[in-house]
């Protein structure tokens, strides 16, 4: 049985003459891992910003868990259960890992934030650096910290902006395993990712954006076989996997 957790209708965002998101309608099922791909500047991050309230769309609507959240502010959307990370890691530099987690406005259902934080750090296997200051940590550890912070929200749906970028392969695998594990427990993921291997292994469905428009949607193999997608990436017909994979 599938249930729609997130649905956008005719979502449009313009910056002056540029239409960064153009009439995007998409729907994500609960428990899905949705990949979003597209060349640079195709509107992926803008879409994230629209979904999480950092931008207010010019047209269209966003419904999350049956509620219209189009005009909501970011913090309200986060509290409603849709969380995100950023392309550039953004830990709170002058705090310890634990404090980073405690800062999160966790839902009321979490009674003991300290216990929850400990649990998450143990789950992500970074409890040994719980009292380290974020600014001294490696990029990979910071990525994990971001994921940990997001989990404090106990979200239904997590939007990840390039979770594996700049991370060594071992750590990348760890992150992906954690994502998989969380997904098995019912968390929905929407991921922007450039690494096509990652997409192939993890994504249930892939949505392709180009110049602000949704140009294809389907399984990884379906979309990479799509002519329009190839064109979008390279402007001519080549084997996408060969180039990017």
């Amino acid at each position, binding site marked *: 049985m599938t249930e729609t957790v997130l649905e956008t209708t005719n979502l449009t965002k313009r910056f002056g003459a540029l239409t960064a998101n153009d009439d995007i309608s998409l729907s994500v099922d609960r428990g899905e891992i949705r990949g979003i791909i597209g060349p640079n500047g195709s509107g992926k991050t803008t879409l994230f910003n629209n979904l*999480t*309230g*950092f931008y207010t769309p010019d047209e269209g609507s966003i419904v999350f868990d049956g509620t219209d959240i189009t005009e909501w*502010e*970011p*913090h*309200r959307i*986060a*509290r409603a259960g849709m*969380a*995100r*990370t*950023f392309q550039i890691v*953004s*830990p*709170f*530099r*002058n*705090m310890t890992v634990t*404090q*980073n987690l*405690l*800062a*999160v*406005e*966790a*839902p009321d259902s979490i009674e003991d*934030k300290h216990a929850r934080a400990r649990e998450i750090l143990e789950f992500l296997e970074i409890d040994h650096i719980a009292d380290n200051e974020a600014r001294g940590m490696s990029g990979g550890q910071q990525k994990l910290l971001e994921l940990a*912070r*997001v989990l*404090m*929200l106990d979200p239904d749906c997590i939007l990840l902006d390039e979770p594996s970028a700049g991370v060594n392969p071992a750590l990348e695998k760890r992150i992906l395993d954690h994502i998989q594990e969380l997904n098995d427990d019912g968390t929905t993921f929407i991921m922007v990712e450039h690494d096509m291997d990652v997409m192939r292994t993890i994504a249930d469905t892939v949505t392709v954006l180009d110049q602000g428009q949704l140009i294809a949607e389907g399984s990884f193999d379906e979309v990479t076989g799509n002519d329009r997608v190839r064109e979008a990436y390279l402007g001519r017909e080549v084997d996408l996997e060969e180039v990017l994979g």
Partner: protein
Amino acid sequence: MSKREGSLPPRLESIVYTADGDGYDWRLAWGIVAVLLVAIPWLGAGTFELRILIGVLMWIGLAQSWNMIGGYAGYLDFGHGAYFGIGAFVTGIAMVSLSLPFLPALVLAGIFGAVFAYAIGVPTLRLKGAYFAIATWAFAEAMRQLALLLDITGGTSGLTLPSTMAAFGIPLPDLPRVIYLYYIMLVLSVGVVVLTYVLFEHHEFGYKVKAVRDNEDAAESLGIDATRIKRQVYVLSCTTAAVLGGAYAFYITFVHPQEVLDSMITAQMVIMALVGGLGTILGPIIGGALIFLLDRLSALYFGSDTMYISLMGLLIMLVVLFAPDGIVGLLTGETDASDIRSNLNSLLEKFKFQ
């Protein structure tokens, strides 16, 4: 390290160190400080010493109050002094025009400060960085000009407050007035410091504030209502400044716009918090005490030479250049000799014009 450990007799050690044998028990140090502060009027301190201590306490409180918005929240409030002045005037007006005793007047000052801060904070906090700094500064200057023009503030004449303890609000034994003023300032200043410590260092609220300072977008994405947090910090810090201003009015008994709304008041708060160490609990305490004592005592003892103004300037420059974490940074070892050396080297780099 082990040497030092062994140098204490075991009994003392059990008092000085925490139960798990690891690290110092800070509570002991603070306990001693607290007892000393309470006992000082009875340990031979005269009126002058108490006055100086009142000044020290007040400036620690003010520096800490600025530190909330400026240090912890990272908003350069250059109009903070306005709330000090507003608090002083509200207290003065309540005592003179409404004939209220000091205590209710002080409460009124706090309430008024809070309401005013909210009204100003809502539009002003939408600005960031230098824009916020200049806007708050313009606001504070406007307040000073306004106070010079209104009748209720006494205009250019200022207000003269009742100068006996009879106006305090509750009957008190007959002790020198300065002792009461000392305790009033002690309670308020320690209150501000403790409040800051609890809220900003030991409470989720503080983590949220720092989160908003370090990365507002990330904070928002984690459910933190940044706008609300900023307003809360602003109102809190402005209210404490207003309350301290109210106490100051009762202390000095003469309130004048050119003094309590002087832009130098804000400047001094900023310098103190910065020299001590921004966004730390100890910074404003050390910075406030040190800068106030340097400034006041040099004015009193070397008063006939204005050179000390330049030396203050030099001190500020040196701290910014070589110890940007402030004195706290030096004390905690965060800034050490090698940092200063590398700062010096990097400074010399900047002189390579070719």
